């Protein structure tokens, strides 16, 4: 008989389930709950989409040519380097 976990237990430990850090018994408990709780399915899907969008958000910026470095910053770095020992 699979134990019924609460929505709170599922959401609090969702990361462990998604990372595969749960035991076989716990995995079955998560999946038993998800099969019967559309609210938690909605939460899990939006959580996964958040992670995916977070990763994509910064990939967009790096695809084209990198932004130029401001000349005043270049000058400051070169000046600072001259004062280093060696």
């Amino acid at each position, binding site marked *: 008989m699979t134990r019924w976990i609460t929505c709170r237990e599922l959401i609090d430990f969702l990361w462990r389930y998604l990372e595969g850090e749960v035991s076989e018994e716990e995995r079955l408990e998560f999946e038993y709950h998800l099969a019967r709780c559309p*609210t938690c399915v909605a939460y899990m899907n939006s959580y996964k989409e958040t992670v995916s969008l977070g990763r994509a958000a910064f990939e*967009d910026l790096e695809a084209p040519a990198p932004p*130029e470095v401001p000349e005043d910053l270049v000058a400051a770095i*070169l000046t600072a380097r001259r*004062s*280093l*020992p060696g």
Partner: protein
Amino acid sequence: MVAVPAASGYGFQGLHATVSWALCAFLSALEPMLGSRRLTESSTPSPSDAGAPPDESALVARLRGGEEEAFALLVRAHGGRLLATARRFFGCEDDARDAVQDAFLSAHQALAAFQGQARLSTWLHRILVNCCLMKLRSRRRRPEESLEGLLPVFDETGHEARPSRPWEPLEDEMARRQACALVRSLIGQLPESYRTVLLLRDIEELDTAQAAELLGISENAVKIRLHRARQALRALLDPHRKGLPS
């Protein structure tokens, strides 16, 4: 600890004086281990990932020779990308510029130990992330910021007090780009300690052990903080994405 002379610029004196030669040694030791996708800048290894390409080796040789022109070339080639990364860690432009300056100066001091096993861009990126973290650490210790209002609330039976509803699918590439822009802005609203973990794990793609080492906290603390950061970001996105009837 090495005392570094003061220099003009973006707060160079304050932070760089705290950069030790131990950091240089640490970075050199990490060089062959720069394995995350973000840090190698490609999920598919290319032949050039095996070592520095010929033109990069030549640049490294010139840098080791102390050529200022080569150093300027390095700063112009990589500074923009490093500044974009530093801006993710800091809301303040001056802080981001400070971190970039510290990164180039640390790289200059660590060049002798650079073995060419990673690309220069990868190596510099890692140094920059370290400098950002050192700068964050050097600030006055503040109590852990609250995520109140951004974490799920449950009733006495363990159900969500405000049940989640499915998000509308993103219809096309334009919608996805707009969502990405929104996420970039919302990440900036997260409290610093949560934003930093999110950046290291989900954006920089360090593994839990690497993030824990850099932050000086336990791996379990990294996992819990990351989960809360993702939950908070999800909560910030929710009003913009909710739409389908339950």
